[in-house]
């Protein structure tokens, strides 16, 4: 059985500040207004309250599990298998010109 204890660890017990949420929004490339940041902060704190339950679990010596079947990554021969479908793929792009994807100017 898992020993259940109140969460004491600083990482789990802390709540996010406005600055924390602004930083995460920037990393996630999501534009947010100050009121959206505040709503997000409250909801994230609620969710991290739920997640804090994990902290009490003893996982010493337990290997992290990323996939259910512990198989080695399959490898294939290093050769071209796909044909060029540039026109088909660029047909769904927001802005293209002469076969290139257009973005706002990056280099002055």
């Amino acid at each position, binding site marked *: 059985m898992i020993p259940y204890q109140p969460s004491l660890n600083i990482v789990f017990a802390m709540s996010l500040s406005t600055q924390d949420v602004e930083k995460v929004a920037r990393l996630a490339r999501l534009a947010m207004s100050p009121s959206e940041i505040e709503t997000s902060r409250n909801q994230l704190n609620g969710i991290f309250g739920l997640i804090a339950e994990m902290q009490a679990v003893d996982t010493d010596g337990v290997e992290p599990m990323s996939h259910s079947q512990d198989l080695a990554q399959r490898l294939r021969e290093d050769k071209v298998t796909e044909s060029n479908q540039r026109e088909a793929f660029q047909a769904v792009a927001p802005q293209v010109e002469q076969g290139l994807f257009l973005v*706002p100017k990056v280099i002055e």
Partner: protein
Amino acid sequence: MFESSLKQLGDALRAKKISSVELTQCYLDRMAQLNPQLNAFITINPEMSLAQAKAADARLAAGSADALTGIPIAQKDIFCAKDWLTTCGSKMLHNFVSPYDAHIISQFNNAGAINLGKTNMDEFAMGSSNETSYYGPVKNPWDTARVPGGSSGGTAAAVAARLCAAATGTDTGGSIRQPAALCGISGLKPTYGVCSRYGMIAFASSLDQAGPMGRSAEDLALMMNVMAGFDERDSTSLQRDKEDYTRDLNKPLTGLRIGLPKEFFAEGMGSDVAKAIEAAIAEYKKLGATIVDISLPNSKLSVPVYYVLAPAEASSNLSRFDGVRYGYRAPEYNDLADMYEKSRAQGFGAEVQRRIMIGTYVLSHGYYDAYYIKAQRIRRLIAQDFVEAYKHCDVIMGPTSPSTAFKLGEKGDDPVQMYLSDIYTIAVNLAGLPGMSIPCGFGDNDMPVGLQIIGNYFNEARMLNVAHQYQLATDWHSRAPKGI
């Protein structure tokens, strides 16, 4: 005809009692009549469906038809289908006409099945009620004031309302099983790796798995024969021999050991759900099964573990939506970073942004070990509980969802309450096991209750057998919503 099984439809088509064009037109007429009140489909394209039906008729005439040739199947809008609008329930992909087919779509095309349309879903499969779809919520055919469940809610509603013969879903934390339960249909999430994820828009790649949804276990078995199989384009697709999933359907259940996890029958489950589940277990005893009490002590950690791992993987997967190569781009912006930020803020809905935020945070510098790696370690503990349990039983049973379908808007403002509605299904995804839900009665307000059947790895044929024998002895699966 709308009550016919896939096998009966296939027999009728091969016997030339009905053509695929006629059958497809019948379904299209029914969709035109009933979809406006259910909103189960995002895209319907009669011209493309009927062109496929015509080709199927030629194949039927030539005598080279397979089991599903000519049968109209709806596809969850998470599967890329060439020349079909493929939105994943998001504004981000409101204009994405897919240039290629997902592996699952190719499999149905090769089988000669008809793509009847793309079903509505929670945005990027993130939701348990179908209310996060940019294209509006789906209504439950049993009571249109209630949700169909999610994220495969459009598929579940379409199957329950007989708008298609069967349909596809995907399940990351319960997205096939929970809507199947809430809409009174059958659904199967296979073992992770059995169905290719190629062309299935990614949510949480270590958990995502496609599967069939239909009106009976027998129908699901025929769908699995088309959907399952190795695909080299999915790096986690498993290399296994082709199976016939119908092979065990008619075996008796004598000696079947059913494990009942005490954690699934503790507080939290509605009394109406408990009553229906207990009656189903009693029916299984009559069919020759024995009951084994088991424990999954770590299963209660599934929800917190899932809400670290799934958002982490989602935040990584959804970074591809940048307004450059496909999808939505904001109309106005100052520079490149501004274009990314505004396109993503305007293109993604609130729930998707919430999960991207959680994921970005738990993967950020200084928190990766404390959250992501910690969750992966507990994931192994959860999986090991099942390994231990299967030493004592053949299948595990319990409720699919703690309650029947709730009302639209009821849980809208509280993400944590919504997340807890997946409490019985998530552990199965974390362990990578196959799980299914079949109708087993009705609860309060006459809404359907789903029985969850969890199998050991690659035991899908056995689970389908277990479900089919129950469906031979009961008629819950053949009940249809009134007025639909």
